[in-house]
């Protein structure tokens, strides 16, 4: 745009010129309008001319001259048809008069003119119309010339009164019009004068504004050029520059303050950048060293990761094996619990059987006791028999000895003694047999009783043991169940351990890959560090361009 390239001063001057031109155009239009519409001006003259023409031609409705002429004509008229026509016209005129009266009563402001028009002129007119209707028209209709003449006299008087009042109204109106015209003329001349004064004032204001504009533009451009100079020096790298006067608070002052602040910030920034570039140079050297160390570390890390991954894989496999073993153990434990359960139910049955057995042994013991009593009786008898047989035996032996001592004389007695001894021996043998049998029986019964007692005790113990075993089996079942739960927990733990080991293995693989990537990336990293070092050097060079003073 053309305007944008103009200086501030010229812009302001252009604005002022446009404003002045617009004002003078307005003033011209106002002047012309005032000249056109002023009183006694061309427009006013035309309007008044039209009104005068109408007033000159038409009979005045508020002035009863036409009614009076009609009354005079009626008084002279003798033909009935003409009379009716005249009466009709007179009535119409009265209606018109009343209408105009109502208009003027509203239109005129209270004052002398209104009183004259609406009271002094109205009352005779009303009286006139009443006389006309009450006296004249009946007299005319009655064709009574005397009454007509009398009515006409009264009417003339009334008309005269009315005409005088109308004359005074005309006079008053003319006076008022003259006054109004003078007032209008005065206001028009005042407007003209005001317009001229306003034009002068505008010219003065424009001149002052132009002067102010020039001054402001000058100061503004001076500050701006100062700011431009400071900025260009900053751009050249001289950060020691100071803005001389930045204390004013207008826009340019703020601009200078901002430039000052910018320069200060830039100064500290450049100082810090210089410091940072030095640190950066040192850091790149450290980086290079660290890169070499990292290379070595990555090598070590890769080896460690390989070892750890191998260990984790073997842990995972071992724990998986262990887990399957645990599962089989768990299954076996479950089977054991089932077996124990079956054993417990069997034991309960066995307990019942044992109690029956106990009762049975008690009855058997009782019967065995009876048998023992009987056998002891038998034994007593047998003992008696034995004793008798023994004594018989002894007797026979002693007899035989005596017979033998007697030699041949005792032979017969000896045969007898031998027979007795044989019988005794047989008896003894028989009793021996019986005794042995009884003894066997007795011992058998005793043994049986003892065994029964032992058996009963054993059965009792067995019942106790069975109950104990049942309790223990119950405990075992509970323990096996608890064991199963613990196995489950252990299994869960093993599974999670296995998973963890697998995850470790995978993580180690990833870590190895990462280490490999790190190792691969190291040359790139070194190249980057070299680039960084070059960048730091160039930055240091660039920064050295700035002068920071002390």
């Amino acid at each position, binding site marked *: 745009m053309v305007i944008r390239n103009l200086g501030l001063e010229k812009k302001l001057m252009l604005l002022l010129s446009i404003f002045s031109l617009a004002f003078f155009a307005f003033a011209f239009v106002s002047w012309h309008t005032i000249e056109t519409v002023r009183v006694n001006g061309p427009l006013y003259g035309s309007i008044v001319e039209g009104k005068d023409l109408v007033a000159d031609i038409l009979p005045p409705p508020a002035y009863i001259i036409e009614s009076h002429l009609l009354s005079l004509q009626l008084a002279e008229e003798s033909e009935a048809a003409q009379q009716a026509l005249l009466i009709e016209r007179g009535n119409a005129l009265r209606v018109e008069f009343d209408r105009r009266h109502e208009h003027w009563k509203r239109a005129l402001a209270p004052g002398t003119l209104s009183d004259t028009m609406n009271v002094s002129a109205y009352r005779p007119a009303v009286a006139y119309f009443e006389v006309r209707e009450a006296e004249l028209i009946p007299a005319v209709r009655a064709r009574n010339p005397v009454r007509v003449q009398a009515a006409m006299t009264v009417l003339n008087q009334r008309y005269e009164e009315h005409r005088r009042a109308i004359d005074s109204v005309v006079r008053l109106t003319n006076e008022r019009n003259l006054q109004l015209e003078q007032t209008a003329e005065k206001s028009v001349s005042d407007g003209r004068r005001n317009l001229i004064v306003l034009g002068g004032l505008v010219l003065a204001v424009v001149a002052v504004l132009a002067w102010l504009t020039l001054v402001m533009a000058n100061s503004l451009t001076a500050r701006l050029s100062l700011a431009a100079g400071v900025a260009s020096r900053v751009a050249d790298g001289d950060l020691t520059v100071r803005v001389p006067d930045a204390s004013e608070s207008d826009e340019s002052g703020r601009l200078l303050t901002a430039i000052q602040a910018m320069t200060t910030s830039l100064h500290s920034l450049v100082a810090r950048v210089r410091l940072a570039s030095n640190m950066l140079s040192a850091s790149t050297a450290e980086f290079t060293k660290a890169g070499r160390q990292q290379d070595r570390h990555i090598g070590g890390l890769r080896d460690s990761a390989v070892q750890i991954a191998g260990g984790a894989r073997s842990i995972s496999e071992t724990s998986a094996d262990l887990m399957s073993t645990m599962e089989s153990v768990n299954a076996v434990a479950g089977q054991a619990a089932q077996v124990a359960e079956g054993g417990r139910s069997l034991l309960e049955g066995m307990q019942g059987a044992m109690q029956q057995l106990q009762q049975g042994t008690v009855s058997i013991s009782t019967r065995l006791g009876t048998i023992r009593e009987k056998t002891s009786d038998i034994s007593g008898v047998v003992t008696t028999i*034995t004793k008798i047989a*023994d*004594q018989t035996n*002894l007797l026979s*032996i*002693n007899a*035989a*000895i*005596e017979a*033998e*001592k007697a030699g041949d004389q005792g032979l017969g007695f000896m045969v007898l003694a*031998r027979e007795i*001894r044989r019988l005794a021996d047989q008896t*003894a043998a028989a009793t021996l047999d019986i005794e042995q049998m009884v003894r066997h029986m007795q011992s058998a019964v005793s043994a049986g009783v003892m065994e029964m007692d032992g058996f009963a005790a054993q059965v009792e113990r067995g019942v106790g043991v069975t109950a104990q075993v049942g309790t223990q089996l119950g405990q075992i079942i509970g323990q096996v169940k608890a064991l199963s739960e613990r196995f489950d927990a252990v299994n869960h733990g093993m599974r999670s351990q296995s998973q963890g080991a697998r995850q470790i293995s995978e993580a180690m693989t990833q870590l190895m890959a990462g280490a490999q990537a790190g190792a691969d990336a190291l040359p790139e990293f070194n190249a980057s560090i070299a680039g960084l070092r070059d960048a730091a050097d160039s930055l240091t060079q660039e920064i050295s361009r700035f002068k920071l003073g002390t």
Partner: protein
Amino acid sequence: MVVLTVAGQRHALNAAGVVEVLPWLPVASLVLAPPAVVGVIDYRGTVVPVVDLCRLLVGRDCRRWLASRMAVVRVGPPARHRLVALLAEGCTLTRLDTASAQPGLHRPDAPFLGPLLNDGDGLLQSIDPEQLLGAEIIDAVLSAAADLPPDPLSAQAHGR
């Protein structure tokens, strides 16, 4: 012959020397007696020492069975003989054919063993009670008997 059973072994004794065969009577024990002497019994008013044959021959006490017997024998010279009860685990009689006797084992430390006999049930070892009891026991018995008046009962038994 009277057969005495000692520890399952049968020993034959001449019936002429046997006064009477008795059942196992209550024995009163003696202090300071020879080892083979179990004690004494009252045999029809006479105190008779009891010698356990089992203890003497096999070194153990006789078992007390119903068939256990005490054979009262006469020892010592006929003029001043004494009675001794021999305790054995059994006693019976047998008719023996002394012609079938065979010489047994003769040992200087066992002079009581006589000839071996056969009664059809097997071989029997005949024994001499005086030899069996030995000088010590017989002397003890006899010396004890020396203080006593002559035994009327022995004469009575002898007479039977």
